[in-house]
């Protein structure tokens, strides 16, 4: 579906380009096309161009142009979008040790779905996911969509500390925590892959629009990759 972008003021120097109203994987090529068009048209006049599921936030350099000027130029830039080819994004294989000790909600998700933990793993690995947005923490990629049976609401009480590399599910989204942090997603496993590295060119492993495939590995392989097997304490509540 070809979007009709709407421009909304969100701050004295920022506009939201709203392309869609709901999350869908088919939207990403359009969101990325909008990012390209905005960067090309505004150049250094744009300080930040932040894509998310359905929108792009644009912060302009207010010393160089007014919001009204930016609005006009964005209107031109977005007038004739064509979706970016999906094969432009990289495909990342993320090895994951799925285990209840590092993924305490693995069993909960299985119970909710009426399937075994092994089937949860199989189904989580069965699809390539789109990276919709980076946010929450450096390199944290919001991905989806997991199949309906695995969809599980966030924990009512977020954990104070989720281990680095934890793989989680919230509703129909999935993500990996790049660094230890508080978090409310249902944890099902852990990866040794680094998602954020200050020494890496571009800093983050994922970019919006990339594709991600999870691959189940055993404990020995996880350890050989440098994975930390310290168990993740269960959430405060049970069976949320």
């Amino acid at each position, binding site marked *: 579906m070809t979007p009709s972008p709407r421009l909304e*003021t*969100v701050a004295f120097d920022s506009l939201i380009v709203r392309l869609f109203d709901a999350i869908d994987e088919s939207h990403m090529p359009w969101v990325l096309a909008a990012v390209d068009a905005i960067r090309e048209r505004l150049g250094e006049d744009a300080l*930040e161009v*932040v894509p998310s*599921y359905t929108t792009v936030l644009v912060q302009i350099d207010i010393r160089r142009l007014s919001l009204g000027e930016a609005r006009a130029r964005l209107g031109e830039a977005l007038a004739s979008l064509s979706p970016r080819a999906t094969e432009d994004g990289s495909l990342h294989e993320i090895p994951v040790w799925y285990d209840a000790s590092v993924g305490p909600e693995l069993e909960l998700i299985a119970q909710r779905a009426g399937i075994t933990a092994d089937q949860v793993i199989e189904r989580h690995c069965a699809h390539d996911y789109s990276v919709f947005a980076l946010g929450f923490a450096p390199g944290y990629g919001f991905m989806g969509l997991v199949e309906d049976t695995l969809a599980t609401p966030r924990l009512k009480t977020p954990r104070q500390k989720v281990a680095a590399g934890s793989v989680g599910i919230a509703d129909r989204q999935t993500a990996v925590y790049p660094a230890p942090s508080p978090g409310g997603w249902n944890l099902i496993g852990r990866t040794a892959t680094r998602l954020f590295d200050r020494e890496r060119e571009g800093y983050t492993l994922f970019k919006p629009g990339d594709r991600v495939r999870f691959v189940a590995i055993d404990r020995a392989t996880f350890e050989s990759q440098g994975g930390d097997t310290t168990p993740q304490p269960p959430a405060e509540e049970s069976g949320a």
Partner: protein
Amino acid sequence: MSLKVERAGPLALVVDGGRQGVRHLGVTQGGAMDWVALGWANWLLGNAPDSPGIEIMVGGLALVAEADVSVALAGADLGATLDGEPLALAEPVTLKRGQRLVFERPKSGLRAYLALPGGIEASAIMGSVTSTVREGLGGLDGFGKPLAQGDVLTPRQDRPSTTDRRLPRRDADSGQRNGDGEPGALVTASDGPLALSLVPGAQIASFSGTSLYRAFNDVWTLDQRADRMGIRLTGPRLEGSMSGMVSEGIPLGAVQVPPDGQPIILMNDRQTIGGYPRLGGLTPLACARLAQCLPCTEVHLVPVSPERARDDHLRQLARWE
């Protein structure tokens, strides 16, 4: 030409203008919460306004000069003393080797800014030295650690202060009028609720008419829950029609309203994307003033146009030229 940290206090951070061009990677902005005060402190020494300085929250910081060094202060009055004598805040000061600069406790405002000649030496991470503790980026160690006992602050330039600049008084020169919510070089008390300028927008249309009326006419009170990520306001419960919003990028000063109806103003260390409906965004000038407010401070939200907000902003930048 350096200062040694004898005692760090609750939170003292290396800050500058923050990280730019990295929000799409999930990396927050960071930087001086009261960027106007940092600008004035730097201006006193002839530095660029966003040169790295120290943001001292509440006080408790004690520094010893390891050699003669010029410094400048702006922002909150945290009861600074030099070898026990109260320090005048309006002009640069040269510390003699061995002298102690101590920040006792807040007298007016919350965050003081310390500038050194040329800025403070630290390695830039993603284009900024600003310390974001949550992300583990920046600061003296490069990993976001706040100042700690034994740290050494080294100026980028090995020169004494050459300016004879003084901070403007609170009058037309500084653009600051009592209670108008405009940040100044030094924080002074307000007679009544502070007026914070807000550019309406985002999901403002999703709030009820009554809620909007009250948002801009009632007095809001700053909550205890306030940090570099966000500052909560308490007051009338704001209600809207929006639920299950899709997360989107969040600008500085965004006024988001979670389901409890009490707004949170998202500040420098905010998460980069979020999914609560918003009334719009405070101007950066209003954010700077807000950063100096203690819990229980009363504020008004005052709508302004983007054009007016831009004029005010550019006028502030021009004061440092």
